[in-house]
């Protein structure tokens, strides 16, 4: 029971601390949304670079349906014509066109209003061109989403909103130098990731995709794109990705967890410098209880971050394949990072030194482990190095549950590595703290 009170106190302190709460909650959410938008392009693109001939039947004839038509025309992968329904059907049947899209009457009135019943947009596809049909569906969704979510169309807008967040952080007087360094590093990484995503995109299909914020506001079913890439290749892995959040949210969760690690590893030093550690030590508590209370608080905070990000991800259209496996990966990840927190906590004496080493270690782990650029986008030799980062195993476990479709035995190695790191970290932390006399 006392452990619970200790943990509740720590969670309350974490949420009251503006910076701490930002790194645990605000930062991961921003990151998840931001990278989701960035990876939208490469993750959802198809394989073929040939243009698809389609025909559009506009039964609505409103400005909104015309915008949708224009949006489809703007798509570099499509060649778009108009016709009436009968002509369209005939041309698809004859194989002159790969598919047709019927924009129903009433589309314009309901578009973008999620509470309105959405009239069905029909897609007719030449059955012999199944892959193209699926791509067409994806592109149609993109086009609709663009229409609806134009505000989010431009990732630079996201960047500038992050910039504003950073400026207000920089002008806040209680920001430590370590934090400033961190934010600067983060922005550099963002730039790098945008570039990486851009390069990837152009190298994959040699054409420009616009990056769209996808909202599930239209009444269209999505179909997986099947092609014959090797499962371990980048393209093969990406085939399983069903939503941009599949990649960005596991990463974002890790940043939230790193925020917890940084926050709680500092909190032991902070209790020391604020003198509250003395009071805890004067209370009828054993040293182990004080330590376990900290660990419990960190564990709960990590789970909370993962839960929150999962809820947000699901709300945005991420569909974890197995919640049970996600829970297992989440528990193992939280335990692992509790261990890392305990070790970091004893590395430095003062809040500043702990914060500094903590974030430095976090950034290195994140960089190699896929917390910034997903591991599958890294060059081969770096991917080997990644195995040494706990972040790698965490993301692997989480992705295994969300979209990689791991079986329990495939999930086991990641969970085992995480638990092992957690045990080692807890052991080191407890050992060092117990040896300290005061």
């Amino acid at each position: 029971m006392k452990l619970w009170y200790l943990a509740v106190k720590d969670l309350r302190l974490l949420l009251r601390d503006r910076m701490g709460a930002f790194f645990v909650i605000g930062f991961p959410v921003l990151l998840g949304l931001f990278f989701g938008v960035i990876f939208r392009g490469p993750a959802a693109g198809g394989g073929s670079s040939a243009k698809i001939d389609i025909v559009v039947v506009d039964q609505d004839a409103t400005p909104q349906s015309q915008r949708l038509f224009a949006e489809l025309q703007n798509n570099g992968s499509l060649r778009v014509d108009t016709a009436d329904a009968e002509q369209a059907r005939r041309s698809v049947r004859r194989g002159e066109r790969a598919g047709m899209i019927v924009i129903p009457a009433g589309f314009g009135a309901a578009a973008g209003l999620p509470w309105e019943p959405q009239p069905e947009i029909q897609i007719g596809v030449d059955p012999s061109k199944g892959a193209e049909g699926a791509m067409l569906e994806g592109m149609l969704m993109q086009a609709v989403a663009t229409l609806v979510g134009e505000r989010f169309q431009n990732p630079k807008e996201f960047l500038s909103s992050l910039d504003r967040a950073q400026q207000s952080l920089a002008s806040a007087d209680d920001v430590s130098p370590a934090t400033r360094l961190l934010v600067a590093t983060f922005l550099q990484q963002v730039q790098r990731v945008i570039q990486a995503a851009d390069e990837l995109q152009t190298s994959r299909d040699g054409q420009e995709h616009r990056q769209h914020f996808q909202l599930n506001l239209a009444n269209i079913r999505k179909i997986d794109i099947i092609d014959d890439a090797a499962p371990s290749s980048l393209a093969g892995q990406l085939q399983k990705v069903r939503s941009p959040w599949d990649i960005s949210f596991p990463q974002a969760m890790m940043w939230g967890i790193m925020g917890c690690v940084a926050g709680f590893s500092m909190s032991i030093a902070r209790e020391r410098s604020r003198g509250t550690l003395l009071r805890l030590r004067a209370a009828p508590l054993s040293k182990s209880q004080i330590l376990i209370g900290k660990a419990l608080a960190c564990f709960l905070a990590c789970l909370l971050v993962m839960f929150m990000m999962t809820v947000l991800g699901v709300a945005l259209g991420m569909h974890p394949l197995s919640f049970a496996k996600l829970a297992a990966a989440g528990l193992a990840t939280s335990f692992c990072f509790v261990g890392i927190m305990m070790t970091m906590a004893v590395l430095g004496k003062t809040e500043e030194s702990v914060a500094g080493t903590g974030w430095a270690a976090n950034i290195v782990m994140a960089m190699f482990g896929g917390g910034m650029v997903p591991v599958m986008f890294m060059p081969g030799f770096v991917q080997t190095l990644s195995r040494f980062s706990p972040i790698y195993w965490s993301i692997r476990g989480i992705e295994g549950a969300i979209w990689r479709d791991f079986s329990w035995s495939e999930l086991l190695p990641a969970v085992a590595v995480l638990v092992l790191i957690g045990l080692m970290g807890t052991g080191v932390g407890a050992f060092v703290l117990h040896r300290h006399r005061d």
Partner: protein
Amino acid sequence: MLVLDRIAKRYGPVTAVRNVTLQVRRGECLGLLGPNGAGKSTTIGMMVGWIKPDSGTVLLDGSPPDRTETRRLLGVAPQALSLYEELTARENLRFFGQLYDLRGEPLRERMAWCLKLAGLEDRADDRVQTYSGGMKRRLNIAVALIHQPKLLLLDEPTVGVDPQSRNHIFDWIEQLQSQGMTIVYTTHYMEEAQRLCDRVAIIDHGELLAIDPVPELLARHGGLSVIVGQIEHVPADMDLPGAVTDAGWRLEAAEPFESLTQLTHRGVRFRSVQIAGPDLETVFLKLTGRGLRD
């Protein structure tokens, strides 16, 4: 209640506490009086079990203070403020109360009592970081009382507190003591020790120089009273005892009133006279050869 037996603590070349032996009796208020760096806080630290003595033993009601259950008897207000600044006074009190297994109605009662004591009832739900120094100081003591300890250790509780709050704190200490609480009170203000404490231990350079009730300390080490004054007239044939300087006339005497009466009898007239009895300052001076503030 609390027994220190030849405890010692060194920090590298510095001996913070040197073979201190003393007993705190049930129900008394014991003062630890000494200048900065005398070893008062180190002694308190060893009493609580924060600091492990290099040698010697500490026994609280017969068992060592680092035993979890023994610590329930103990309430400590550390010299440095030790509060969660991001939490409110109420949250601080509730949290520490919970650590002592207080729950529900008893906890609420204790919290209300502590808030009243600290005079923080109308600021109870503000974060501690928004308090003034004196308010924090008062809460720092109140938190030590949440679980109604039998032994209260106060390490310089009045530093940075205005005279009014200071008097308020003295009032509580007297009240707590009258309710049977045992108190150890460290200070470098002799007036505080003199007013509050039944016995005073004088400490310097880690050594316990004397421990006695205040009147006995004064009688044994206080020496003579001092008379200072301005002289208006001295008879021509008289040899005035004492010393005359620019500041006036000064005389040390065991029986100051006697001496003054005699002098008036012999025709000396005074414009003003002040008598200062021996105080703990003089006791300290006697024992260490230097003033408390040096």
